[in-house]
């Protein structure tokens, strides 16, 4: 009975294919599951993938527990995660001065070799001063600490100067929350800066700045789209449940 039903289903797909004039191969759920069963994923590799995520995203306590529970060794010294997360957190909370100090404690080369990051941190510091209504302090900081960097004549310095002007213009508006540059005061600006520092620290530790899992998920979507052109097969549409759909055309 169920077998007969399946066949009808395949015939229907085939007809749809013919009507649409496509020459797609049809792979039934049964056939596809066989193919899936031939794929062997090593538990060890999955554990590594999970550990990589925990470490890169800074879940130090979870990484520590995972090491114990699964026997997976992290690909970085766990102690460095705590330091990295402290920097990230400081930026997220608006304590930029503190963050800069912490980065330099970790490795002074990070900011020395990365003028763009250093500028973005200084810019964030300026934003925080303006947010807190410290107008005089903000002006002094902009002119003495930030402006001189913008005088040199290259493209990077030019873009810094433009950013500086944009940031300082926050001071010109009464209602900063409804001004053209209000986005600078948004929490997302802090998060952007925080993740930039996070990435720079990871790079300085010869670690990839992004976890592998999200890019594998993107690759899955891409691979499915590519295969769509050639075949009708059971897709996974909802990544978080990973359920196989029935093949459509």
């Amino acid at each position, binding site marked *: 009975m169920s077998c007969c039903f399946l066949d009808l289903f395949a015939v229907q797909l085939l007809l749809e294919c013919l009507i649409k004039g496509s020459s797609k191969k049809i792979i039934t759920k049964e056939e596809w599951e066989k193919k899936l069963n031939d794929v062997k*994923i090593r538990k060890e590799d*999955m554990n590594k993938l999970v550990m990589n995520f925990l470490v890169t995203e800074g*879940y130090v306590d*979870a990484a520590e527990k995972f090491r114990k529970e699964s026997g997976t060794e992290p690909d970085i010294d766990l102690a460095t995660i705590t330091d990295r997360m402290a920097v990230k957190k400081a930026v997220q909370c608006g304590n930029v001065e503190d963050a800069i100090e912490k980065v330099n404690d970790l490795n002074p080369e990070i900011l020395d070799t990365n003028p763009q990051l250093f500028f973005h941190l200084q810019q964030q510091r300026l934003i925080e001063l303006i947010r807190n209504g410290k107008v005089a302090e903000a002006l002094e900081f902009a002119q003495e600490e930030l402006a001189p960097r913008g005088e040199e004549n290259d493209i990077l310095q030019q873009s810094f100067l433009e950013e500086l002007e944009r940031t300082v213009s926050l001071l010109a508006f009464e209602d900063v929350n409804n001004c053209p540059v209000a986005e600078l005061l948004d929490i997302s600006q802090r998060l952007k800066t925080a993740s930039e520092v996070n990435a720079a620290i990871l790079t300085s530790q010869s670690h990839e700045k992004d976890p592998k899992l999200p890019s*594998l998920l993107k690759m899955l*979507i*891409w*691979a499915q789209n590519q295969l769509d052109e050639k075949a009708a097969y059971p897709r996974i549409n909802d990544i978080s449940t990973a359920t196989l759909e029935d093949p459509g055309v």
Partner: protein
Amino acid sequence: MAQENDVIGLHFLELWRFNSKAAAAAATATTSTSSSSKEDAEFEEEPTELDTFNSSGMFSVVLSDKLSVQYPTVNLHGHDVGVVQANKPAPLKRLVYYFEIFVKNAGAKGQIAIGFTASGFKMRRQPGWEANSYGYHGDDGLLYRGHGKGETFGPTYTTGDTVGCGINYSAQEFFFTKNGKVVGTVAKDVKGPLFPTVAVHSQNEEVTVNFGKDPFVFDLKAFEAEERRKQQMTIDKISISQNASYEIIRSYLQYYGYEETLKQFDMASRSTVPPIALGQENGSSDTEITYAMNHRKTLRQLIRSGEIDDAFDKLRMWYPQIVQDNKSAMCFLLHCQKFIELVRIGKLEEAVVFGRTEFEKFYRLTEVDDLVKDCAALLAYEQPLKSSVGYLLEDSQREIVADAVNSMILSTNPNIADARVCLHSCLERLLRQLTACFLEKRSLNGDQGEAFYLGRLL
């Protein structure tokens, strides 16, 4: 019920077998005969020289280096083309295949051509003039595909020029180069093996072919890198839900019963900025997967530390149905592990006694015959860890048993209709789908393009 149990038990026996002595022996056997081990499967013969047998006889002379071709006489008509194919077709299993010619002498008319032709190509015609052939011609700079009328394509080429031709398998197109620069591309709408082909057609014409023995004038490495970058960019542009990764990690921890990790992970995700909203949409599946989490965690810990008797006791107490059938695959796994642990701590006599009583009932089951033998073989070695069955003493073997028990407990959840859903975590299902998609796409494409190894990405 017994059948359901078997689905899970047999699955994990299969995983064991994947590591077993027989599997390792099979892998080495195939490597030595160079048939189907992973890396050898990707080895393909590639063109190395010109085919001196199947060329157009009197109208071309392949010199003794088998890489140079000359036109010896005065051509009388269009059918006197001197065509030479390479000795092998272009290899398929790579991103790009490419070769170059150097025009040593454009001769009387410079009617030189470079391209690809199918295996049954007529050896008296220019590549491009016949069906299933493509050619870029030096005298007019036109591209010919399938008939005698060319299309505007690139510059002409003559004495002193280096001209190249390649197949881009990912874009499914041919591309041609002149003196290191791409002059154009054309869609590849032909299937089957394609031979690098050169043609000469007027007196004194002479070209030398480079199949890669010497460095190319064209920067092939940079071209390949650019192709990969383009592909990566399309992939990067795909947007996925921010929470997807968190959800997957979380369900992985739940699935395997990594309870402590999960606790820490949840605590930390709650305090991230911005906070991550987890498990709200699918709260129901959440409770299903946290099923018996604490029991699963405890049993994993016991098995991972080699305390099989304790694990057995707990199972008998909490889930008697799992260990009820003494001859089930699950019991077999646990008994084997007990034996392995006895060997590990050097209690060989005890192991022998235990083996005699326990293995006897399994020995008659032919499907586990090989695995019983692997276990028993541990006794033969003074240093079993270094033997061919040493894999049994590694953590991965304990892991298999622990994962089997974990799946088994998950399947006792009355809300689960089909035991097969307990076999894989969400992450594993995604990775299997990813691999299967790549494999299928490549096989539908006539095995063209690079192979996909998940391991390389991890």
